[in-house]
């Protein structure tokens, strides 16, 4: 009976078992999409292991950092294969994280062959996000809402709305494609402060602090900060510290930009601000 089972297993595996390489490529692709779009390290590793296990690759291993994945497979039964992939950190696009998560759940129910899963992942990888115009509008509305939340009045919120729009145009068309992260954030902090200062000096809005705090919110590194904490909580210290360092640099960049703009406004605004 046992021998029969084993034979059946053997037959089954020779028919259905996909090559290690293909499974690894698919698992790596899933990991790549997750990491690139703002998932935690533990989720990347877990998804990788699940895909390997589901398609019968036992010796698959992944080491995940905040900007790269190292994978190997191979033992006396499975062929050796290794790949290192560098994954630059980009903006969070949670719809892709959710989609990979969904695919991984569906895979567990046996819905996909490895080839189908890979095709589905390829589609997720290029899944379009929100249009730029929507993002700019969201930034404006978010800025206005946070300005009101922190105590601003309706005029402050109107100014924060306008500044939030301009800030996101700057982020999408100037900072992200052309500037390094540090300079981009200094520029963003300065831009927000200067624009709010101009509004305030011309008598629009009553509290400059609320305007600035509201409209700087779209730059706050919430994803890097929260993911860094989550990584440290699950003992992924290297990735966690890199992400927290990233968040700190953004904070400092914004603060430096604000400081520079304050100094400028003070010099050219007749000392009305400081």
């Amino acid at each position, binding site marked *: 009976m046992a021998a029969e089972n084993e034979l059946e297993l053997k037959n089954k595996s020779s028919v259905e078992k996909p090559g290690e390489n293909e499974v690894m490529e698919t698992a790596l692709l899933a990991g790549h999409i997750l990491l690139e779009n703002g998932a935690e390290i533990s989720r990347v590793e877990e998804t990788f292991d699940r895909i390997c296990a589901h398609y019968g690759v036992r010796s698959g291993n992944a080491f995940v950092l905040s900007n790269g994945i190292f994978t190997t497979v191979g033992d006396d039964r499975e062929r050796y294969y290794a790949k290192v992939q560098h994954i630059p950190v980009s903006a969070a696009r*949670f*719809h892709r994280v959710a989609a990979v998560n969904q695919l991984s759940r569906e895979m567990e129910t046996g819905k996909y062959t490895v080839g189908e899963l890979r095709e589905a992942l390829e589609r997720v990888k290029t899944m379009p*996000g929100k249009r730029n115009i929507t993002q700019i509008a*969201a930034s404006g509305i978010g800025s206005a809402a946070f300005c009101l939340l922190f105590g601003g009045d309706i005029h402050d919120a109107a100014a924060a709305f306008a500044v939030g729009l301009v800030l996101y145009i700057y982020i999408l068309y100037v900072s992200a494609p052309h500037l390094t992260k540090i300079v981009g954030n200094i520029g963003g902090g300065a831009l927000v402060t200067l624009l709010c200062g101009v509004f305030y000096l011309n008598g629009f809005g009553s509290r400059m602090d609320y305007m600035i705090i509201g409209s700087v919110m779209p730059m706050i590194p919430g994803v890097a900060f929260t993911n860094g904490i989550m990584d440290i909580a699950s003992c992924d210290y290297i990735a966690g510290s890199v992400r927290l360092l990233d968040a700190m640099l953004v904070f400092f960049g914004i603060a430096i930009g604000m400081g520079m703009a304050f100094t400028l406004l003070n010099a050219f605004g007749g000392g009305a601000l400081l």
Partner: protein
Amino acid sequence: MTAVIFEVLYAVVGTVAFSLLFSVPRRYYVSCGLIGGAGWLVYSLLEVKLPPEGAALFATMVVIALSRIAAVKGKCPATIFMIPGIFPLIPGAGVYWTSYYIVTEQLTLALQTGYEAVKTAVAIVLGIFFVFEVPQRVFKLFGKD
């Protein structure tokens, strides 16, 4: 009390706007907004009695717990709800005043506000840690219905 209701409303709108910036799928907007609003509600109710960092700690714990419940219900990662939901609690004012005081050479005040902001940030971190430790099956109980 009316002030609190309006503030919660602003927090909901702000959270939804930011979940859009992070490309959260549309079907989760409502949960994101409600979680952000709930976090701020807890914060503003506790702020009366507790120091800001204490209020932020409990508000964060509520945000993370609700996010994990929403994740079980929506069958998706909890971070999708957590990250936008935490935004209203971020000590943005602290960063602003710290850099303001540094520029105006009021270093004592800068240190004080900077320290306050760091305390709130640490409270948020602890809030995440504490609820992170709760086993997943607890949230699965809530998710069943």
